[in-house]
């Protein structure tokens, strides 16, 4: 049995699966159910300053994108931070943490961009027993219009300033949650580090309009005839999140900065991917909102089985394993040659590989009269499109040509490693 316990910036949890700050963590009732179901930790729904609570829209808050079979791929929301009174949240956090001392309890915070309110809120949550704080610099709608959330997260100087206040006024381990609505994620990450952050978490949601109602011609979700952009999350955003996590792990300035990976984590596999690209743990929102808390059982059993099968003793041994292999395009080996190969026993003869290659790629798949599909090595550029569109897993694979073999397409022999920086066609390389 593998050891799933994790120590993230000194915060221990029985497994690396935390719930992200969002509706699943908005109340004692939900969080108790989450802990009972087995979640390793939660980031409580973002708290704002004391005073009159936030108000939410009373119409629909979410919009969705579906895949086949109405499988939810992307969710968009226009919800704000918690709309419940601060003192009630604080009481609940304290009670739940007391009853579940082995789980991680992080409090997410968002108050106006001044030192006073940050100092106040930190004092107010001091005695909750929470294990740390997360600074929400990510919310892209509503709060941003009021100078908070992503309005802070898009300005590195503000991130550094607020993070420094938090470190000055409390001993809490501090996680800075980043917005993806920015050109280069490395700048806000460096700023968080400069401000003294113990870790960053990412991504928060992405600015989005999910759809337009074609009868009323209004953006969805529609509130009384109008729509506003919201934050996009769920399986669809995972690739964006993975890249941003990897960018931070690869950056010299932040490679030692712990990362909590968020964005589209739906199964144990997604979680391992985030870990491999440098995340110390993961946070989940949409998957729990789609299927309920029980999915964590699959995440735990899947990670367990994976680690046992691979002989990995602890979660930390996975962290960052893929980082040295995440490179720039110019580092890739241009002398690595592969050809698609179709397994005729597995082929169900749908023809999708053929038509995608024929219409949109390199005309490298032949079809016989009795619908046998074969790859023409002299035309295949190994783009992988046929593999991607084939509905049968493992039916089309890429075969590597060994060193010295002839690539029938180019007539050239396969050579040793060579990348763009030294390629004869690279005029820049030649003049240096």
């Amino acid at each position, binding site marked *: 049995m593998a050891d799933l316990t994790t120590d993230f910036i000194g915060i221990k949890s029985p497994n690396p699966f935390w719930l992200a700050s969002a509706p699943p963590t908005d109340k004692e009732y939900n969080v108790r159910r989450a802990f009972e179901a087995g979640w390793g930790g939660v980031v409580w729904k973002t708290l704002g300053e004391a005073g009159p609570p936030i108000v939410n829209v009373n119409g629909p808050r979410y919009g969705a994108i579906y895949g086949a*079979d109405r499988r939810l791929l992307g969710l968009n929301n226009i919800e704000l931070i918690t709309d419940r009174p601060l003192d009630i949240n604080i009481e609940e956090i304290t009670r739940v943490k007391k009853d579940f001392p082995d789980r991680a309890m992080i409090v997410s915070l968002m108050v106006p961009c001044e030192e006073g309110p940050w100092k106040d809120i930190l004092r107010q949550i001091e005695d909750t027993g929470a294990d740390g704080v997360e600074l929400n610099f990510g919310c892209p709608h509503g709060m941003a219009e009021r100078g908070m959330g992503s309005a802070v997260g898009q300005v590195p100087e503000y991130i550094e300033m607020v993070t420094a206040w938090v470190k000055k006024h409390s001993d809490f381990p501090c996680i800075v949650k980043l917005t993806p609505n920015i050109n280069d994620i490395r700048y806000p990450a460096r700023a968080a580090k400069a401000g003294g952050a113990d870790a960053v978490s990412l991504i928060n949601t992405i600015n989005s309009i999910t759809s337009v109602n074609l009868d009323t011609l209004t953006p969805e979700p529609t509130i009384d005839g109008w729509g506003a952009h919201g934050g996009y999350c769920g399986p669809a955003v995972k690739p964006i999140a993975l890249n941003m996590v990897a960018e931070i792990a690869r950056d010299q300035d932040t490679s030692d900065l712990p990362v909590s990976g968020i964005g589209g984590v739906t*199964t*144990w*596999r997604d979680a391992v991917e985030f870990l491999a690209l440098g995340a110390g743990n993961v946070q989940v929102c949409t998957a729990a909102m789609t*299927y*309920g808390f*029980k*999915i964590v*059982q*699959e995440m735990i*059993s*899947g990670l*367990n*089985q*994976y680690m046992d099968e691979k002989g990995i003793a602890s979660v930390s041994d996975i962290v960052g394993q893929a980082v040295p292999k995440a490179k720039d395009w110019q580092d890739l080996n241009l002398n690595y040659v592969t050809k698609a190969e179709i397994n005729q026993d*597995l082929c*169900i003869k749908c023809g999708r590989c053929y038509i995608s290659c024929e219409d949109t790629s390199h005309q490298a798949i032949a079809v016989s009269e009795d619908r046998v599909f074969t790859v023409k090595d002299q035309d295949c550029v190994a783009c992988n499109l046929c593999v991607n569109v084939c509905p*049968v*897993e*493992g039916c089309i694979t890429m075969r590597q040509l060994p060193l010295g073999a002839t690539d029938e397409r180019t007539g050239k022999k396969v050579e040793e490693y060579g990348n763009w920086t030294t390629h004869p066609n690279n005029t820049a390389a030649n003049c240096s």
Partner: protein
Amino acid sequence: MSQTSYAPGISAGRISADTILDNFADLHPPLTDHEALVAADRCYFCYDAPCVTACPTAIDIPLFIRQIATGTPESAAQTIFDQNILGGMCARVCPTETLCEQACVREKAEGKPILIGQLQRYATDRVMASGVHPYLRAPDTGKSVAVIGAGPAGLACAHRLAMHGHAVVIYDANKKAGGLNEFGIAAYKSTHSFAQDEIDWLLSIGGITIHTDRSLGRGLTLAQLQDDHDAVFLGIGLSGVNTLALDGDHAGLCNAVDWIASLRQSDDKTDIAVGRNVVVIGGGMTAVDAAVQSKLLGADTVTIAYRRGRENMSASMFELDLAASKGVRILYHVTPTSVDDGSITFTHSETGEEINLPADQIMRAIGQTLENAPETLAISGGKIKTDDHGRTSISGIWAGGDCATGGDDLTVTAVAEGRDAAEDIHASLMGKG
């Protein structure tokens, strides 16, 4: 020369050995990896899923399907075995069309349920083929429990007790363990030596001893068992058969369960004799299985004769469709009155007509009865009376499966009752000790 379906009388080898082999292949062949992924992907991961409620052992079906969909069938098998240690057999024999798959929301939505039974087989086959037994015994408790009957109820009970660290001794009257898994289930559901392989795999947890050819009521007494052990579980099934009073003599009269048992014990089935014209009397699973297997052995005509209407029949629509697809004819509302050499006569209960059918072989499948139950135990409706925990009227004695009240006479129900009784025995032994 070789015989044919049309040879008169009762004989073996009506069709070639190869055809018999084909006919008795898996009713549902195992899913390939691709088929399993496609099937698993259709699951909606319902909350408080109706399929789980419909499963007598309450396997967490959405979870195990999600585990298959995410590429961990081994974890899926563990989810299944946690609830049902005979999940492999149940995947093959459960009438899923009246259990989990009937409750599937996609049955309601499109009339096409998720292939739960076949996915269950996909996951459990994988683990059993690897030879891994995923449970360890708890440290020895020093307690010993006698389990009477090595059918699904007894085996499930024994395994759960062993898991809790008790020493288990199983006694079975038969020459082989397995109960109806080994001697009753249709051969095209449990193919090859699956029943025995599953028992070997189950026993590999350790701490369980099986004595065959040991019968309660003949040699073994309840008093002796209670003296030698800390608790007793009875999973003796229904080993008697109902008889049928008929005028006249017929050389080809037999009990369907006996005929099926000999079929199940035959390696290639070429030695099993079947009539040219077969009549099966009854309306349950046993009648359907006997009729279908007669047909698969090359009988020319096979008729199921049932005394009431379709709506009273305990066989499911799927079973009846299967029988029809193999060419079995079903007569409703007919009561047998007399037999003669080579024929049987019925009266139609609604029209009063007399129906005479040619019959070289007549199989009785009109129900099994409790036999050899200790007289001191309270009986209700022909079964040993038990409460929700499987406790009988005598303290220290539990019962479950077909021999006990509660639940349908199904393999999966027997497993559930055996498992639950084991939990209660464990609680009571540890409370005591």
